[in-house]
């Protein structure tokens, strides 16, 4: 709709005090674009600010304000039945011949030789194949991801796909992981493996889907001799805190300064 005055202006010769219709429309369009751009810029700036504020409020390392979970292993109780391996493989759908947790058997013979074996990860138990009169010492040791506080696998990952969760578990973001496998040789405990089903690197994450719902990891749940103790290290009354207080415990490869959270009671010098 055009007003009669405007129509008159278009045909009239240009005056210093009046603007033409074309000029008016151009200026209006410019100001609308500028206001819109300013509003969009303000919106994104405020969103960025809220996001940065959130990032400051939720640090990755939650200890000691949040639970800091770990597992303690009682080697004096372990009987090498491999139920933990079975439970882990079933619970986490681990492909055959790959293990998030496995059981090793150390046999020290009287001639001083140490043999380590783990047939099928100890999933089906161990055969009694070494004559008892040749054995100086023999023991089982369940192995799993040591949930290092300064994890070498986290440092090795080129795409930042593996990280320490606020609960203290080393977890893998399978959507970010590109399966390059740089973390596998980085782990001094051999706990990482390449999962042929997912085509990603994989590791024990303390059954992250269970511990966040208040349950124990599957291996702890099924251990028939209570050789695995799970709990919150930040809580002095949790089972694992009591276990660490009442028993002498050691970590594997402490000289590497990886800060492993998984501790062992009754660890022999052959296995450290």
């Amino acid at each position, binding site marked *: 709709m055009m007003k009669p005055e405007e129509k008159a202006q278009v045909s009239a010769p240009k005056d210093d005090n009046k603007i033409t219709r074309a000029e008016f429309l151009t200026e209006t369009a410019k100001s609308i674009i500028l206001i819109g*751009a300013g509003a969009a810029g303000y919106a994104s700036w405020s969103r*960025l600010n809220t*996001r940065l504020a959130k990032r400051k409020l939720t640090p990755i390392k939650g200890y000691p304000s949040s639970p800091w979970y770990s597992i303690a292993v009682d080697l004096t109780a372990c009987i090498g039945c491999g139920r933990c391996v079975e439970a882990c493989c079933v619970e986490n759908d681990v492909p055959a011949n790959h293990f998030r947790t496995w059981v090793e058997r150390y046999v020290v013979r009287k001639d001083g030789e140490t043999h380590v074996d783990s047939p099928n990860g100890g999933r089906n*138990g*161990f055969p009694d194949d070494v004559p008892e009169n040749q054995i100086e010492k*023999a023991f089982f040791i369940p192995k799993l991801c040591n949930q290092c506080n300064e994890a070498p696998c986290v440092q090795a990952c080129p795409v930042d796909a593996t*990280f320490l*969760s606020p609960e203290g578990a080393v977890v893998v973001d399978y959507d970010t992981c590109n399966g390059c496998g740089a973390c596998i040789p980085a782990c001094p405990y051999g706990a990482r493996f390449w999962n042929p089903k997912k085509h990603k690197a994989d590791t024990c994450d303390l059954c992250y889907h269970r511990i966040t719902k208040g349950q124990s990891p*599957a291996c702890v*749940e099924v251990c028939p001799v209570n050789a695995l103790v799970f709990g919150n290290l930040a809580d002095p009354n949790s089972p694992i805190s009591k276990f660490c207080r009442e028993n002498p415990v050691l970590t594997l490869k402490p000289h590497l300064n990886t800060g492993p959270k998984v501790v062992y009671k009754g660890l022999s010098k052959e296995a450290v």
Partner: protein
Amino acid sequence: MAPQVTRISIFFACLVFAFAGSVSVISPSSIGQLGPKRYDSLARLQNQPEKYSGNKPCITCHGNSSPHAQNGVPCEACHGPGAAHSKDKNVGVTVMPTRAACGICHESNAAKRVSFPQVGMTTHYPNQRCVDCHKMHMYLNPKPSNTTKPAVEAMAAGSAPKTGSTKPTAPDKLQSKTQKVGGK
């Protein structure tokens, strides 16, 4: 300022704001909280279904009066994952009263601690089921009483077998171990 410069700068300013605006709208709000590229990774990890339910749902229906349960052996150690069974009783669990199943834990091995009851599975009554003598479960069908030996019956009941009763011919490691444990 020259008009073409103004036009170009307005155009580029619009491009920048359009990019920033669309990034802030499209990207999920949890991005950056756990690292530069990650979003909702922990939530996705939590979505994995559980297959092991723990002892509580088992005990609710079946009780825990069996000797194994009394000694703190979880049901799922022998019977496999039970979360599906606890939700729908038509989904079965592994029922395994076979010799091999008992041998997983009780097969003698030099690396096992001495206090754990263990036996040579190939020499200790190799043709009989373990559960025929060792009543380790309340839901097993009872065998006719003439096949069970009084010594092992007493052992299953928790008391030490009498000396001079029917001694098994095969080397019986488990019996002596049980005596030792029972005496404590």
